[in-house]
């Protein structure tokens, strides 16, 4: 009796788990393919303006022009082509910014959690100070200080979101540090740094991976927000955020300029967070 009730949900769960991994991977694969193959698959030049073709509606609405599947914006630029090129910036920012943030925050979290003492006090106080800033305002301020550009956007994300990694990894490291296996490693003669790297790090890895995935989604959003307030890269370059800003302004004339990049952002963020959850369950030794 107990066996059947326990095994039934588990079987169903593993079936759902696979779908939860494959659906996000499918969408992210499409985005990655669009980003890599942009010059080949984009039907038009994303910067080409044609005022004769401004605000063309998407294919399912009357009055469209063949070849402009998702319509054009107020300057007659092709929405689909801009989205395809925008995928490049979105993916680039999410990969680089999330990795930098993850390295920076995880190292600080591991150090604070394992060495404790003054390390912990200083890092925890820094986290407190950082968390007292509204993140969006902080990001806008940092980019204004560093100057607009892709590098500033990435730096701003890392400088703000490291606290997310530092907090979680610190707490998990503290829990792991008290485990017997850490003591036995130390008794066996391993140095503290070696113990941290070889014993503790593998055990906090599932959390790091889940947070990394989450951060990739967040990075895409932050880039979009900065583009939205016109502080990301040059406003001519196609990004999903700058398209959204344009679409918001032209909402009563050309809503499709907002709708399609919004769907892309929605699916991308959802994919990253679902993937993070799925990977965490898959790599978690306890859940296995």
């Amino acid at each position: 009796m107990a066996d059947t009730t326990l095994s039934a949900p588990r079987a169903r769960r593993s079936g759902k788990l696979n779908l939860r991994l494959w659906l996000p991977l499918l969408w992210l694969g499409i985005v990655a393919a669009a980003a890599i193959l942009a010059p080949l698959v984009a039907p038009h030049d994303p910067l080409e303006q044609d005022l004769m073709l401004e605000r063309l509606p998407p294919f399912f609405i009357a009055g469209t022009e063949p070849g402009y599947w998702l319509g054009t914006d107020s300057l007659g630029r092709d929405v689909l082509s801009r989205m395809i090129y925008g995928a490049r910036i979105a993916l680039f920012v999410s990969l680089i910014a999330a990795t930098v943030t993850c390295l920076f925050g995880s190292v600080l979290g591991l150090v604070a959690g394992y060495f404790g003492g003054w390390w912990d006090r200083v890092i925890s106080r820094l986290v407190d100070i950082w968390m007292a800033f509204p993140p969006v305002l902080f990001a806008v301020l940092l980019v204004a200080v560093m100057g607009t550009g892709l590098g500033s956007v990435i730096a701003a994300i890392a400088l703000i979101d490291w606290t997310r990694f530092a907090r979680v990894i610190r707490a998990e490291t503290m829990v792991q540090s008290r485990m017997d296996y850490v003591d036995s490693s130390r008794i066996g003669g391993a140095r503290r740094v070696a113990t941290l790297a070889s014993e503790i790090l593998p055990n906090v890895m599932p959390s790091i991976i889940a947070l990394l995935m989450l951060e990739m989604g967040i990075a895409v959003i932050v880039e979009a927000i900065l583009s939205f307030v016109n502080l990301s890269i040059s406003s001519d370059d196609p990004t999903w955020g700058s398209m959204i800003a344009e679409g918001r302004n032209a909402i009563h004339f050309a809503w499709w300029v907002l709708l399609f990049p919004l769907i892309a952002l929605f699916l991308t963020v959802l994919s990253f967070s679902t993937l993070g959850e799925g990977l965490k369950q898959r790599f978690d030794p306890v859940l296995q």
Partner: protein
Amino acid sequence: MLLKTVLIRLITTAVTLFGVAVVVFTLVRVAPGNPIAMMLPPGATEADIENLKALYGFDKSLPQQFVIWLGGVLQGDFGTSITLRQPVDQLVLGRLPATLELSLMALLIAVALGGIAAVIGARKRGSGTEVGVDLVSGAVLSIPDFLWGLVFVLIFGVLWPVLSISGRVDPRLDIDFTTNFYVFEGLLRGRFDVVGSTLAHMLMPAMSLALPLAAMIAQLLKQNLKEVLVQDYTTLARVRGFGETAVILREALRNAALPTLTLVGVQFTFLIGGTVIVERLFAYEGLGNMAIDAVINRDLPLIQGIVLLFAALFIVINLIVDLSYTLLNPRLRHG
């Protein structure tokens, strides 16, 4: 013991606030772009520039400027906005009510939506309805407020244009209120036209801010309700003839609510942080919208004032949450 805990908490709070002041001050000073140059008409002389610099204190060294600024802040003097030419504290306090009303409304919506979803999920536990609550809350949770705001702009601005997608209140209304708390003062004065218009403008930004928190509440509260619903006293209530919904509402909710209350307290600061971009998105005249303008215009005194106010607000809310948790939790009280 308790007093010591509270004292330590207060001291770390002061240290954090000081740290925030240092970070804000340093950040805005290293920003490129000379704010003085932007204020001057073309053809201004060197002497004009020096006079203006002296007026705003930019002629002194950075540590001197910091001490003067901090001394002023402690006395409630936040300087003068460069672009708006008004005292920063007046500008900031004038906008604060709009942001507070928006945040509180969002909090109310989040608690209501999340609470209802949790009760329904717990009531129908083990059924397809619970799976539905889990799926929807999981998806809603991973989409941030900015994207929800855009979804609402599309739905209620274009598809079914019933709500205004910009501003805080109908500009045609004649408002001669003493405070900028349009909802509260409107209710007190019986100006229901103002209250209605403000609420209608506030609904979409508040919903955008509320949805992720509502999903969090739904998940946590449902989990805690389910744990409480297998306890003996809920069984006893069922034996006494109460229906399942009554058991949840009368017995379980009160005992399952504490973790959710803590979550709400902690998440409230994140929600307030979210107002910055959501206000921008809906052209809502609050602090966040003003802050982004201040950054774009390099209005240093105004940026400092707004960031410091936000930080103080966050720190005070966290302090209240921490202290009330210490006071409410008997295990910590005697620890």
